[in-house]
């Protein structure tokens, strides 16, 4: 019985020590980018309010450019609530003159390694899991943009949806946010231009 009790005490000691080390190291870790915010739900999807009253009569819920035509008409928002764009539509945004002057922007929702390896030329980066470090630098550009195309790797990657949520919560209007679901994988597969570590 004594042996059993002794083992139990040792287990508790190990658990308490690990908890202390884990919490302490997280609070004090020198690489702040890897600090985990214990109270934050990192995977909470922010579904924006759909502004039905603001729809242009007879047109789907799309942004309208200054020439009066439809910009890259978006698909109906999926469960996540954001407008989506196909590769062709994203490519049109990339080639549009407004991309040069910052009225249209791309945001890469992946981490440093993926971004450095290859990203859409001129794309900003917002890492959702380190959003406090990334968002302030990008927010000013995002607030002034008419169209923001957010992407990650594509496929079942959800980071672009999460970054859309971060931008929306920071005050970027839903109408300006577009999700490129094909992501970097499709962009590269289609042979579109990329910028990377070698550039």
């Amino acid at each position, binding site marked *: 019985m004594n042996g059993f009790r002794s083992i139990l005490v*040792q*287990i508790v000691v190990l658990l308490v020590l690990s908890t202390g*080390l*884990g*919490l302490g190291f*997280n609070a004090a870790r020198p690489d702040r*980018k890897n600090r985990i915010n*214990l109270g*934050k739900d990192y995977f909470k999807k922010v579904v924006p309010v759909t502004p039905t009253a603001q729809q242009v009569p007879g047109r789907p819920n799309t942004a309208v450019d200054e020439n009066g035509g439809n910009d890259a008409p978006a698909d109906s928002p999926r469960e996540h609530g954001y407008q989506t764009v196909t590769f062709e539509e994203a490519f049109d945004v990339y080639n549009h003159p407004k991309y040069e002057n910052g009225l249209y922007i791309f945001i890469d929702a992946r981490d440093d390694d993926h971004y450095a390896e290859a990203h859409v030329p001129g794309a900003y980066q917002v890492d959702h899991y380190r959003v406090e470090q990334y968002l302030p630098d990008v927010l000013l550009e995002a607030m002034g943009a008419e169209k923001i195309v957010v992407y990650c790797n594509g496929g079942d990657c959800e980071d672009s949806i999460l970054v859309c949520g971060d931008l929306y919560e920071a005050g970027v209007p839903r109408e300006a946010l577009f999700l490129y679901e094909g992501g970097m994988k499709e962009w590269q597969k289609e042979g579109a231009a990329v910028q990377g570590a070698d550039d």
Partner: protein
Amino acid sequence: MERLAQPVEVASARATRARFLVLLARAALGGVFIYMGLVKVADPVEFLQLLHQYPAMSGAWVNSVVVILPWLETLCGVAILLGVVGRAAAIIAVGMLVAFTPLVAMRGLEIYREAAGTLSICDVEFDCGCGAGSVALCSKMLENAVLTSLALIAIFARSQFLCLQNLWTDRTAQQAGS
């Protein structure tokens, strides 16, 4: 005339072999846990993202798991390797393996079903978040079975060969005796 080994000598040789086997089991298990734990300590964000693939791991409480579990793994690895509260550490190790192996298996089956016959079950490969990167499901199951066996050896073996805890208690006993 050849001298036959005496029963005592045979028993002694067996005991020595057993001691070294137990030591090897502790070293292997401890080493793996230390490595896997430190990989997760170094990049908790990646660990968080990988845990999200398991339906059971949702909610803000998972953040605490991300922060504490790698240290528990590392500490248990050190304890098992050095033979200090090694038995307790091995019990925790078995607990972790028993808790996570079914989750990994279910995730592997989910990927297999999604592949709709394009993959065999053993070809299913994904990063389970254990710290070893992307691995094939069958290899992972085998690896976990081996680690569980090593942990059970560490729990039930009588040998305390090169256990720091015993060296410490022996020295204390000697000092008390003298």
